[in-house]
């Protein structure tokens, strides 16, 4: 076991102060990633600053924007009726994240701050055009989520900054969303994942948001696919085009889990299937293979 000190501040101010004054200290939320990295000796912090006892970071609030506290656990996201009603895609993604034990302690903030391209909540939040609020002892700023991810394991957080909230616009009318994930087995890091949001009018797609995970250095919006779908009328040809465009828009790697080629292909298939499932009625008849 590595040795480290452990602090449990009860306010953001206290957390900032501790972070500033203790060298080699790291914020910890749920710990399901951080503790693994420490146990694997990939990280040797001198101190952990727990965010669990800071009330400001908890809670899901309705309002002009929907605010999700960064320390909301994945289980709580899954169980939250407001989120289920307004953003069912978050429920779908939360359901696919780990198993019960992980979901009970992992947090939405932690999931994003790890900066993993495989973060399960990232594609849905990107598709929902979420913003994140980052706070430090100096200032508070809001950032569109797509500007938050910089590279594998790298985020826009400055030293000492804490991601405190996720902010979502109220959903527009005629919006449908879906999250699809594929792993080697059911409980797995995504080999590839997609989240799709479409706004429709009859059989026409007014606008689309398409985001993928595990297919690039960061979770990624596929703007080219979105452009393809904007204003387009649904047809099988459109779906095939979207599939191909999606495959070509991503740059996954080959690693111990899968190959780049396979991931490219899989992203395309998942985008196509996502669109199929969302537009099941519109195209007429079942479209499942």
């Amino acid at each position, binding site marked *: 076991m590595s040795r480290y000190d*452990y602090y449990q501040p009860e306010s953001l101010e206290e957390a900032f102060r501790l972070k500033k004054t203790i060298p080699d200290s790291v914020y910890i939320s749920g710990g399901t990633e951080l*503790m693994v990295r420490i146990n694997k000796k990939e990280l040797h912090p001198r*101190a952990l600053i727990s965010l669990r006892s800071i009330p400001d970071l908890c809670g899901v609030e309705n309002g002009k924007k929907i605010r999700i506290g960064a320390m909301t656990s994945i289980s709580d996201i899954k169980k939250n009726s407001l989120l289920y009603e307004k953003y069912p895609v978050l429920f779908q993604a939360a359901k696919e994240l*780990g*198993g019960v034990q992980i979901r009970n*302690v992992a947090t939405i903030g932690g999931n994003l701050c790890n900066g993993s391209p495989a973060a399960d909540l990232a594609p849905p939040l990107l598709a929902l055009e979420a913003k994140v609020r980052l706070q430090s002892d100096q200032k508070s700023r809001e950032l569109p989520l797509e500007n938050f991810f910089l590279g594998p394991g790298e985020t826009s957080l400055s030293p000492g900054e804490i991601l405190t909230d996720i902010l979502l616009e109220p959903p527009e009318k005629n919006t449908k969303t879906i999250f699809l994930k594929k792993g080697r087995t059911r*409980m797995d890091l995504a080999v590839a994942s997609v989240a799709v949001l479409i706004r429709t009018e009859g059989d026409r797609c007014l606008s689309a948001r398409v985001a993928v995970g595990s297919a690039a250095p960061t979770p990624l919006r596929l703007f080219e696919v979105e452009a393809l779908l904007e204003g387009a009328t649904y047809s099988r040809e459109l779906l095939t085009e979207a599939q191909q465009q999606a495959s070509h828009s991503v740059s996954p790697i080959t690693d111990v889990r899968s190959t780049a080629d396979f991931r490219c292909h899989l992203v395309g298939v998942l985008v196509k299937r996502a669109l199929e499932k969302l537009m099941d009625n519109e195209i007429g008849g079942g479209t499942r293979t």
Partner: protein
Amino acid sequence: MKKTITFTLNGTQIDVTADSHQSLLDLLRVSLRLTGTKEGCGEGECGACTVLVDGLAINACLYPAYEAAGKNVITIEGLTGKNNELSDIQQAFVDSGAIQCGFCTPGMILSAKALLDTHPDPSEEDIREALSGNLCRCTGYVQIIEAVKKAANRSKDKP
């Protein structure tokens, strides 16, 4: 650093001195010498270290000991009643052939307890989902799922 933390363990309030870098698993097994909770991987994948904290199943290997302060923790030792009586879930596991090497058993039972405490009449799908964080290499899970069903039914039959 060291600190004395207070929490409820298997129904009784205790004070224990813990190191800041200890996990709840280490606190239970080493400091408190409760070896029923097992370490299977130390990385939150196998669920052998599952305990309940405020009713929620968590992996004790990833749970900082200090976070247990003020909480209600239940380990496998807390399920056995007075006079060595096994709880319904434990007995159901024994009766259903759900135990082979037994290493995953405490964690499995606690995950099952977390489920049945909130979903007393679970579907098979519910059971599978609730136990999906617990690895077993011996049983193939079939008789484990039967055991949880049996435990649910027995509770239903009780007045």
